[in-house]
Each structure stands twice: as structure tokens, then as C-alpha cells.
């Protein structure tokens, strides 16, 4: 049933890719693409089935024993079937695919082939990493050789390696980027979790000897995760993805996953840590002993340290590009400032929650109001300085070059996103608070308990209002700054000539006009020259244009797409 599910999912993913791709590139939904969907879905299912069977057989060869609940005969018969039927079929289909690729380069360029390679390689990677993690864990924690985990690692690592080699030989940089970045993400998550586990358990063992039982388990789990994640991360990020061109997807990964992810980890962990300390010093300890109260401190410290390292590392990676691109610097400041602002705004909302709890009668067991107030102050203390630092830097940039900064896409997106998020949060909070109010109104039991039931909704509402009020003032101030009109631009551009997907992206960026490329098949087209294309487009404000590249150079034709 699992394989059926995998096959159906693969088919659906393939069909979605075909439809989306056809829409994006205005390709016809032809029979070749539908054939490719089935071809790669079946190949993927066969590879998975074969690997499962091979894992079972290799595990038995290495000495693995079936668990007591498993029907041993059934498992062996299934494994033999998967290997003896699945492997030849997979090999046959792979051979036919290889031949079709040799006969037609269009097959290799197909997005479905890229999708297949990406999914198959990542499947092998994730399962192999999980197998390696368990094998290392068992070796350290129980000093045992886990045959099944080792078999899983060996077989799935082979699946990964095969697809990795094919991907390296077949895919160009643009097509390989999602694969490399997703693999980097897998490695980063596993390695970071392993590092946190290792560091946290080590600190726990040093600071609270005797409290961690059994002492080796946490270290073994961390070592397993770090080994698997570290290898994946080095292969995918250090040796590959970190050297990719600084395109949109690469920057999105580094900024959103590396910088923002690391910062969120660090801010959350530091907040928890600070809160725990404040509660111990000035809050309600709830009769806990020191060891009980600080039982999560080691893990929180480790999370904060690793979060800061991840943030710092990716910030440095962006920094090299940021020195060249002002927009990247800007985006980084808005992203980090935005995350810190959310933490500070949560602090404001939590003060309202604490205020209502303190002002209304109620019985708090295990979460006294003083601890809620300390949580609010912690969020403010952690979030406000980070936001202030980045926001001051952005304000200085606006002061130096108001027109350019106010017109910057990242600033406009930041302000719109803030208003959007604050607006959605406010609407949801209003609904929640209003529901609590009307519920008690209908039941004729309005009272202080009603206000207490509304406290979270009101907290979010007030925090959203505070964020909106300040950024509303910023938005209005921005509108008073004169922004020079944009240069004239065409309404749309169709380029006809040699295949060059990067050119389309650059023309879209430079002109802010929708652009697409039709590849010439009647003659060998000249390579595009971006400067010449941009020069040729100049002066055609509001026009639909066809730009044809042939042996005489560039020809620009005005057309009307609407007729």
C-alpha cells in the first residue's frame, strides 16, 4: 500500500509539474509530457521498491533479525519479489530512459527529468542519513552493530549516489539549484539538531552530573545526527551549493533558512533562557528545586549557541554578496528587523495578557501572573534591541538617499507585509475576542471572566495596533518623499532566438515588464547580448514587442497582444 501511495503521489506531482510548466512556458500539454510523467513516476516507484527489498535482504545478510511481531516468511518473500522483479524492471526502464536521452537532448532538458532526479536523489539522501544516524547511535549507545540500519544506509546511499552522478552530468546550474539547496537544508537541519543534542547533553552532564540518565544516550543520538547531517551538509553546501551563483533561489535559501532560521532559533532559546533565570530571581519558582527549575537550561543554551552560529555563518555568506548588492543588504536588515519586531510585539501583547490576568479574579496553578509578565519583559528585552539596531541602519540609509530607499522593493514589501500580517492577526484576534464576549452576552454571564477569556485576543489586537500605528506613520512619511518616475518600459516583451533562460529573468528585472523567450528552431540563432537587447527596447513605452535575433542582428516589431 505504501508503494501505491508513493506512486500515486509521484504521478500527481508529475502531472502538476506538467500543467504548471505548460502554463508558465506556454507549452502545449502534449503527449510527450504525459508519457514522461508516467515514465519517471514508474521509475521512481521501481527504484523505491527495489531499494526497500535490497535493504531487507542486505540486512539479513549482515545478521539482522526480524522483530517478533513480523511474519518472517512474508517479509522475505516480499523482499525477494521487490529485488528479483523490481531491480530488472528498474534497470530496463533506466536503460530505455538513457537511450531516449541520448537520442533527444530535449528529454534531458525536460523539467520532469529534473524533478525526478531531485526527488529520487533526496529520497535516497534522507533515508540513508536516517540509517547512518541509527547505526552510529546504536554503535555508541549500546556498542552494537545495527545490521538493518547499516543495510538501509548502504542501499539508499547507493540510490543517492547513482542519482547524484546523473544529476551532476545532466543538469545545468539552474536546474540543479533546487536539488542542491534542498540537500543543504536536509544536512543543515540534521547537523544543527545533532550539535544541539551533543552540546546540550554535554552541558547537562557537566552542570548536573547524575541528573541525566542514561548519560550516554543523548550524546549517542547527537553523534549520530551530527555524523549524518555533517556529511550531507559538507557534500551539498560546502562543496556545491555555497559556490552557486547568487541568484534569487540561493539568496532566498540563505536569507530565509540560514539567517532568519538561525535568528529565530537563537531569539526563542535566549528568551526561554532569560525567562527561566528571571523567574528564578524575581518570579514564582512554584516550589521547584534548582535542578528541576533549570532542567531545560542546558538544551536552551545549546540551541541559542547553535542558532547564533547558523545565523552568523549565513550572514557572512550573504555579506560577501551584500557588499556588491545594496538590495541584499536592505533585504537582510528588513528580514532580521522584522523577526525581532515580531518578538517585541509579542512582548507588548503579553503585557496586556498579564495586565488582564492581574486585574481580574482567577486561580493560577503553575503559571502565576508574575511569570507571564516576566515572559513579556523577556520578549521585549530580546526583541527590541535587535529591531532597533537594524531599523536605525535602515533609517540612516533613507536619510542618505531617500528616493532610492523609499522606492526599494524590499522596503515596500516589508511595509505591506507588516500591514498584512498585523491586519490578519488583528482580524483573527478581534473574532476570537468578540466570540468570547458574545458567548457570555448570549448566556447573560458577562463579567470579569469574560474579560479574562478575551485576554489573548486583546493582547494580539493591541500589539497589532502598536505595530500598525508606527509603520503607518513611516508609510505616510515615505509618501511625502518625491520618487522619480520610472523609466519608460514596454508593456510586454517576447524574445525570439537562442535558448537563454537567464536573459529572460534579467530583462524582466531590468524593464519590470513581463518577458518570455521563444526558441528558434529554423536556424542556429545568435547568442543574446543583454546590453543590445536593453538598448533595442528603449523608447517603446507601453508597447507589446517582438524581439527577433537573427544573423542581421536584433529586429524589434511592435505588436498588439490584445487583438
Amino acid at each position, binding site marked *: 500500500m505504501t508503494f501505491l501511495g508513493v506512486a500515486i503521489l509521484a504521478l500527481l506531482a508529475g502531472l502538476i509539474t506538467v500543467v504548471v510548466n505548460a502554463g508558465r512556458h506556454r507549452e502545449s500539454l502534449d503527449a510527450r509530457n504525459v508519457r514522461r510523467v508516467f515514465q519517471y513516476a514508474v521509475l521512481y516507484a521501481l527504484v523505491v521498491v527495489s531499494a526497500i527489498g535490497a535493504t531487507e535482504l542486505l540486512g539479513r545478510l549482515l545478521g539482522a533479525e526480524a522483530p517478533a511481531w513480523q511474519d518472517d516468511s512474508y517479509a522475505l518473500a516480499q523482499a525477494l519479489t521487490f529485488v528479483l522483479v523490481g531491480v530488472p524492471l528498474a534497470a530496463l526502464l533506466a536503460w530505455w530512459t538513457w537511450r531516449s536521452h541520448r537520442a533527444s537532448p530535449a528529454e534531458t532538458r525536460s523539467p520532469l527529468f529534473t524533478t525526478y532526479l531531485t526527488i529520487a536523489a533526496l529520497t535516497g539522501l534522507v533515508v540513508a542519513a536516517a540509517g547512518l544516524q541509527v547505526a552510529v547511535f546504536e554503535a555508541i549507545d549500546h556498542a552494537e552493530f545495527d545490521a538493518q540500519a547499516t543495510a538501509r544506509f548502504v542501499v539508499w546511499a547507493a540510490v543517492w549516489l547513482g542519482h547524484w552522478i546523473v544529476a551532476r552530468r545532466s543538469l545545468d546550474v539552474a536546474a540543479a539549484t533546487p536539488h542542491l539547496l534542498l540537500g543543504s537544508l536536509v544536512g543543515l537541519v540534521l547537523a544543527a539538531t545533532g550539535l544541539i543534542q551533543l552540546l546540550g547533553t554535554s552541558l547537562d552532564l557537566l552542570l548536573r552530573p547524575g541528573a541525566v540518565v542514561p548519560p550516554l544516550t543523548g550524546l549517542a543520538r547527537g553523534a549520530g545526527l551530527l555524523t549524518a547531517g555533517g556529511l550531507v551538509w559538507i557534500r551539498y553546501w560546502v562543496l556545491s551549493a555555497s559556490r552557486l551563483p547568487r541568484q534569487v533561489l540561493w539568496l532566498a535559501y540563505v536569507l530565509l533558512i540560514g539567517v532568519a532560521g538561525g535568528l529565530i532559533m537563537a531569539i526563542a532559546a535566549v528568551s526561554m533562557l532569560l525567562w527561566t533565570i528571571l523567574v528564578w530571581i524575581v518570579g514564582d519558582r512554584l516550589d521547584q528545586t534548582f535542578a528541576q527549575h533549570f532542567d531545560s537550561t542546558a538544551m536552551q543554551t545549546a540551541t541559542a549557541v547553535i542558532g547564533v552560529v547558523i545565523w552568523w555563518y549565513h550572514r557572512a555568506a550573504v555579506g560577501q554578496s551584500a557588499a556588491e548588492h545594496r538590495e541584499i543588504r536592505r533585504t537582510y536588515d528588513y528580514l532580521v528587523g522584522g523577526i525581532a519586531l515580531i518578538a517585541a510585539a509579542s512582548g507588548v501583547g503579553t503585557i496586556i495578557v*498579564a495586565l488582564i490576568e492581574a486585574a481580574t479574579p482567577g486561580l493560577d496553578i503553575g503559571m502565576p501572573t508574575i511569570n507571564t509578565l516576566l*515572559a513579556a519583559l523577556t520578549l521585549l528585552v530580546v526583541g527590541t534591541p535587535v529591531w532597533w539596531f537594524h531599523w536605525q541602519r535602515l533609517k540612516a540609509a533613507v536619510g542618505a538617499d531617500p528616493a532610492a530607499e523609499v522606492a526599494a522593493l524590499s522596503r515596500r514589501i516589508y511595509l505591506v507585509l507588516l500591514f498584512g500580517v498585523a491586519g490578519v492577526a488583528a482580524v483573527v484576534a478581534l473574532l476570537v475576542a468578540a466570540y468570547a464576549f458574545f458567548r457570555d452576552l448570549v448566556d447573560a454571564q458577562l*463579567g470579569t471572566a469574560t474579560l479574562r477569556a478575551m485576554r489573548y485576543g486583546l493582547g494580539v489586537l493591541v500589539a497589532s495596533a502598536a505595530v500598525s500605528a508606527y509603520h503607518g506613520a513611516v508609510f505616510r512619511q515615505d509618501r511625502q518623499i518625491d520618487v522619480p518616475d520610472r523609466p519608460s518600459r514596454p508593456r510586454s516583451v517576447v524574445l525570439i532566438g537562442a535558448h537563454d533562460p537567464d536573459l529572460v529573468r534579467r530583462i524582466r528585472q531590468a524593464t519590470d515588464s513581463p518577458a518570455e523567450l521563444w526558441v528558434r528552431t529554423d536556424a542556429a540563432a545568435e547568442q543574446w547580448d543583454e546590453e543590445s537587447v536593453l538598448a533595442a527596447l528603449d523608447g517603446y513605452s507601453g508597447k507589446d514587442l517582438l524581439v527577433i535575433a537573427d544573423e542581421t542582428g536584433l529586429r524589434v516589431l511592435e505588436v498588439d497582444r490584445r487583438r
Partner: protein
Amino acid sequence: MDGGEAGLSRVPPNAVLGVVAALVVVLAVVTALLTTQRERPELDPGTPEGTVQIFILAFVEGDDDQAVALLDPALGCSAPLRDVYRPSRVSLSVVSSKITGEEGVVVLDVTEYSGGLFDSWSHREDFYLIRADGSWLITGNPWPVYSCK
């Protein structure tokens, strides 16, 4: 409208930020004062709402003998209470409490905290009570024990 918008436009962002910051500081100080003066409420076992809160307090803190003593014997509960959901951190407020003859109904607003402050959820619970020998006993299917049978 134009005048209003023009007026708004003249408000510098730093002024708005200053007002927001001042309000946050004032709210935090007021909350701190209220919090430090706040004491655990006196719970009267002679009232339905007091009985219900004493029951939950005893149950959450693991005093099953006291919790079971406040339950109707017809529920079949005995200390220690096993195989029951036992929240560790809750916040209670009385929404309403009504007495009709020998019976009482208490509605509580319950907020449970799981991982921390931001991992909480609230729900309403009705408690039905009967008077026995001058005190109140909880009957029906009381949260979070429900039934022992």
C-alpha cells in the same frame, strides 16, 4: 478627510514610537504593581465555586485524597486516581455559579499551558454539584476526571 490625512501625515514616526514605548512602560509598571499585590484567592469550601476550584487545585497538585473527597461517591472514584489526564499548569476563572435548591452549577473558564505561555488553550467546563451534609460534592462528569467507572 484631506485635513485629517494631512494631519496624520504631519505626525512624525518617532513621536508615534515614543507614545507606543511610553504606553508599554506604563502598562508594564501597572501590571507589575497589580501582580505584586495579587494573592491567591481564598477559596470557600462552603460554596459551589470554591468547592470546584479546591477540587481542581488538589487534583493538579497531586493531592488525590482531597480531590476524591470532593467528588460524589456515586462517581466511583478512589485515591489515588489512575489513568486520568492530569494537567500541570492551569488558570481558572469563574464564569458563573448558580444554586437551585440542593443543586449547583459552576461554569469555569480553563486555560491550560503545555510547553509555555504561547502553547496554551482555553475551554469552558460545566460542573454540577449536589449538597450533602452541608457541603458540596461534585457530580456528573467533571473535568478532568470525568468518570472513574
